[in-house]
């Protein structure tokens, strides 16, 4: 049956706009690559105008800020690109992994602790993934409920107490370790970015995550087990959150169920600032890394200039809105 519907009509429109896209408007260019430029500018400006910013110690601090949240963010990028908004439960995941690492390693040694943490991460990833991928339930609500459950269990079993690592253990050494001004934690972030970047761009799984984000139906009809893809995306996030938990625990050599508050939305903020679209499909792990750096540098600079917490929050909010506004406007321009 003939069906020259609006979609067909739009198709032509898209075709045209797409072809004219070859000569991109400046605004578009900014939307595409702006974050890199802005980050560079921000760093440059900070070096020039903010005393002490360029000092090695401070660079270390920036890295310390960036590392844990960054590791969470690069992982969560998978969930975002797969078009499932975000994983709220990273808050519970990071804390759980941190507590398990310290508490268990004190009793049964590090290897077992890591194994236990991995197990916990797997459970989180699979529960979230199955509920979203197989039951087609909304990711926001699913991960919201797993946050409740996860934190509840953690607090129940940890009794909310602080767990201390041994003053001189492997964990401690790692937490203090640095390569020049770069703390190991930041190296981990870097390595995670490289690995996950590779997974997202070069492996079948990463490819499927992206194509799922672009068009779920077409991906499924190509013979893909889409539920598995979603589960995979949540598993990657869970593992990243676990590593973040380890880094956080090592850094402070303590762990408590109340740590990592607000990591959910802060990680998402970094991802969005990096230019990854919450509609799925578009985005990259590298962008997330840059987004994290941008946010960390900004916070660092605000603290250095003695700005109070309230204003810091406002700045972050404003930043998010501007980032997406630029993106939205550029898309409008492209339509013309």
């Amino acid at each position, binding site marked *: 049956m003939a069906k020259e519907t609006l979609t067909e009509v739009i198709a032509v429109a898209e075709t045209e706009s797409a072809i004219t896209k070859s000569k991109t408007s400046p605004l578009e260019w900014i939307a595409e690559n702006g974050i890199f430029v802005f980050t560079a500018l921000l760093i440059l400006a900070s070096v020039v105008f903010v005393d002490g910013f360029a000092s090695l110690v401070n660079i270390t601090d920036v890295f310390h800020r960036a590392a844990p949240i960054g590791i969470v963010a690069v992982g969560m990028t998978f969930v975002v690109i797969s078009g499932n908004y975000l994983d709220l439960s990273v808050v519970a995941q990071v804390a759980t992994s941190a507590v398990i690492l310290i508490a268990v390693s004190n009793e049964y040694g590090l290897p077992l602790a890591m194994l236990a943490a991995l197990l916990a991460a797997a459970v989180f990833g699979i529960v979230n993934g199955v509920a979203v991928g197989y039951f087609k339930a909304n990711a926001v609500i699913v991960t919201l409920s797993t946050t409740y459950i996860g934190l509840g269990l953690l607090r129940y079993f940890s009794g909310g107490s*602080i767990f201390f690592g041994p003053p001189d253990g492997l964990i401690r050494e790692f937490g203090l370790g640095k390569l020049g001004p770069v703390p190991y934690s930041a190296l981990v972030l870097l390595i995670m970015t490289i690995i996950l970047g590779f997974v997202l761009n070069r492996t079948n799984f990463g490819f499927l995550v992206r194509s799922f984000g672009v068009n779920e139906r077409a991906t499924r009809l190509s013979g893909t087990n889409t539920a598995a893809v979603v589960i995979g995306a949540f598993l990657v996030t869970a593992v990243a959150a676990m590593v973040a938990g380890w880094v956080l625990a090592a850094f402070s050599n303590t762990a408590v169920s109340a740590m990592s508050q607000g990591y959910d939305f802060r990680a998402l903020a970094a991802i969005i600032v990096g230019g990854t679209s919450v509609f799925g499909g578009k985005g990259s792990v590298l962008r997330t890394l840059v987004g994290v750096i941008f946010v960390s540098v900004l916070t660092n600079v605000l603290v250095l200039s003695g700005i109070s917490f309230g204003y810091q929050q406002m700045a972050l909010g404003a930043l998010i809105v501007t980032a997406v506004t630029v993106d939205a406007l550029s898309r409008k321009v492209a339509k013309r």
Partner: protein
Amino acid sequence: MRKSRIGLATAGLLAVAGLTLAGCATADEPAATDSGSTDSSDSATTGGETYEVYALLPQGNDQPYGTTYLPPMEAKAAELGINLTITNSEYDGDKQASECEVAVAAQPDGIILWPALADTIRPCLEAANAAGIPVWITNADVNPEDAPLTYGYSGTDSYGQGAASAEMMCELVDGAEVGIIQINGLTGNSVATLRGNGFKETIAANCPNVTILAEQPGNWNKDESQIAASEMLTAVGVENVQGMYAADDSMIAGGIDALKARGLDPKDFFITSIGNTFLGNPLVISGELDGTVFQSSSWDGENAVVGIYRAMTGDTSLGRDDDGSVLYMPNPKVTIDNATDPSVAPEW
């Protein structure tokens, strides 16, 4: 349509199952961790009459302090034949207010209240009085104007703790012109605010020669405090900083790590804090932390029960006029000299 109804049915059944499970959970609870509601068998052991008491706390075993606060409290309650129902509002003023309504409605013999937000509990107090239920305040006192509505208070004086820490700072500095940095608790949290003000105002009064160069929140968190401290050091310039204060030991531990990370020796700095916890006490002994203020969670928990017991047995009456209506927790200053003293053995 049929399937959807099946779906609903399953949902319902599972919900019921879940709810019943919860019932069990509450029962098993004391076994799992010795906190939460004590089961009646405890009170039975005491013979004598038993009292029903609601304890409205803003934290429970989701926080280190609460975790060590509860067991002594429950032990004492069992001993005095008090049947406790404990709630935890997670420092949400609205939630606690609602829990207060629940408690008043339950018409217990007494209410132990640990204000989540001192400014917001006036209505709760009035409701309790209207219902003739004695209220004993624990851990964080109410505002002066509300004190007459309570039977008494046992616990620390958060402002005083800040002040005490400041006094130690003044002694340490001993008249010298020094600059220090300040790490505060969770932004907007009332204990954080009180301790902060206590410290600041006492410094201003007793030793104006100490200048607070910068302050940032550390959110009761060691890792966040370390970064915040380090950044403040950068901001004001390490050379200008001779001291550091944090509103609790976890945070000062972070601050001390920040110094170490720069290859600085904490011993060269004037450092004071509050808590004398498992984290802080070793630092005092090692000499890195010059002084902290001991806060005993067990004292706090026990005396909350003692207090409400007095109120219920008429030893103390409405208002704060009669003696014994205010039990201030001894907040001994802990320094390297008495750090190993059993009387200040860390509890959390």
